[in-house]
């Protein structure tokens, strides 16, 4: 893919990120952090490619280690965010 094209995607995504997240209220800062952290576990895609298509023992095991770390990040991140968010309730009096 053209370098300029992916830089374009990158820059636009940064702006989308700023626009979407600017208004998050302080009470949700922790879930926002753990939830966005789970999304940064998207590196799992790269790990799958490295571990799954690696031609040498070294690349396969590097990929495998990355896969384990990234999966912890993804699964743990989304789950713990869900657990936290389920506590945020409004009690009707």
């Amino acid at each position, binding site marked *: 893919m053209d370098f300029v094209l992916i830089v374009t995607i990158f820059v636009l995504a940064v702006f989308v990120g700023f626009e979407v997240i600017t208004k998050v209220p302080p009470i949700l800062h922790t879930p926002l952090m753990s939830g966005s952290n789970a999304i940064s576990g998207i590196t799992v895609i790269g790990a799958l490619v490295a571990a799954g298509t690696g031609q040498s023992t070294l690349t396969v095991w590097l990929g495998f280690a990355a896969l384990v770390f990234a999966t912890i990040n993804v699964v743990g991140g989304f*789950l713990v965010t869900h657990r936290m968010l389920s506590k945020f309730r409004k009690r009707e009096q």
Partner: protein
Amino acid sequence: MTAAIVNLIYLLAAVLFIVGLKGLGHPRSAVRGNLLGALGMLLAIVATLVAQDILNPVLIVAGLAVGGVIGAVFALTIKMTAMPQLVGLYNGFGGIASVLVAGAVLVQALNAGISGAGVETGGGGLQFLIATAASGLIGGVTFFGSVIAFGKLQGLVTEKPVRYPGEQVVKVVVALAAVAAGVLLVRDPARVEYYWALAGIASLLGILLVMPIGGADMPIVIALLNSYSGIAAAATGFVLTNTVLIIAGSLVGASGIILTNIMCKAMNRSLANVLFGGVGAVQKSADDGDDIYAGRVKSTSPEEVAMILKTAQKVSFVPGYGMAVARAQTPVRILSELLEADGVHVDFGIHPVAGRMPGHMNVLLAEENISYDKLREMDQINPEFPNTDVVIVLGANDVVNPLARDSAGTPISGMPILNVDQARTVVVIKRSLSPGFAGIKNPLFAADNTLMLFGDGKAMMEGLVSAYKEA
């Protein structure tokens, strides 16, 4: 599956991430937002598995299973009080994954004999190499910085700022060494050892950057590392020329930067000041000998406070990190329920940097089933303090210190505070008169309308609950 279909699924995943993050902006939509994000991730993973010719499916299944089980066990068993550590650690895992993926792709590219231009990349060699170096650098800083942050929050590494002469010089030298290793790698990519040297130096840099940062500045560090983990993922996206990595990484990077900025504003400090200067270590001896406490501090008992609460109509709690340490949330909730049962208006004033990560107090109080509309932001609750009968300050110090508002030249001057001193009566629950993280005295403790309830936060809150029941 054709590349076009895979890329369209990646686009769908990216859209789900954006919609999901948007959902995290309100308590009503947050649960669904998080689930949408998870769905996006699942789609991206499945599409990748189907599209790639996986040579060793057993290993892939094993990796997903091991990581999934570890992640799930952590997530489901961790106590809410330990949440800052866990979030800190997860930031690091994202970082190390980026280091390893970029390393694997580099090795693979070299094995394939295409020095410079990766097998997985259609792009130019220079982009690939610079992105690889960036992944190693940012990922390494993120991982080891997060490990130190975890250690500090878990109590394995001292929470105090670790400072030494020549500290800034050491950090600059190590940062330059990392950049130098990156330049060497780009110039001579055949020597993969440059990459590992880069990752190693970056790791050292991560340690050096976080060690000097004290406990009360942790919210800023955690938010910043959160941002780095996203940027590392985006860099890996440039390595692989993979759009979903770039988009997801940039979203998280932006989110972390916004949080970092909010935290810095709430402390009236620049990011550079937090990372390179910092209160706590230097100004510890800011004592001028003039004892502002002598003869003016009024000590009280749970019984007396209970009597005051009995006549109150509006009560606010202001929790700080001390509440988390004392694990006093439960008696706080019980007392708030008793007060409400008597028709008292109860709410909670929460400073943005109270605790050890952004939103720390809110999570602890939500865990106690306290309705989220009672958790008030600083700007909302500050105008109401003059009409508040009783404020109970529990384990907070610097964020309620009137010096920040009224005098210049202190380490916290200009920091926005909760104006609890404007309430009719302020009850401060604290072990002693010892200063907070900023190392300065707090005139609030000696104010005419302040009563000090000396003791352990949990014991005192429990004492208040039983005294209130009997009063």
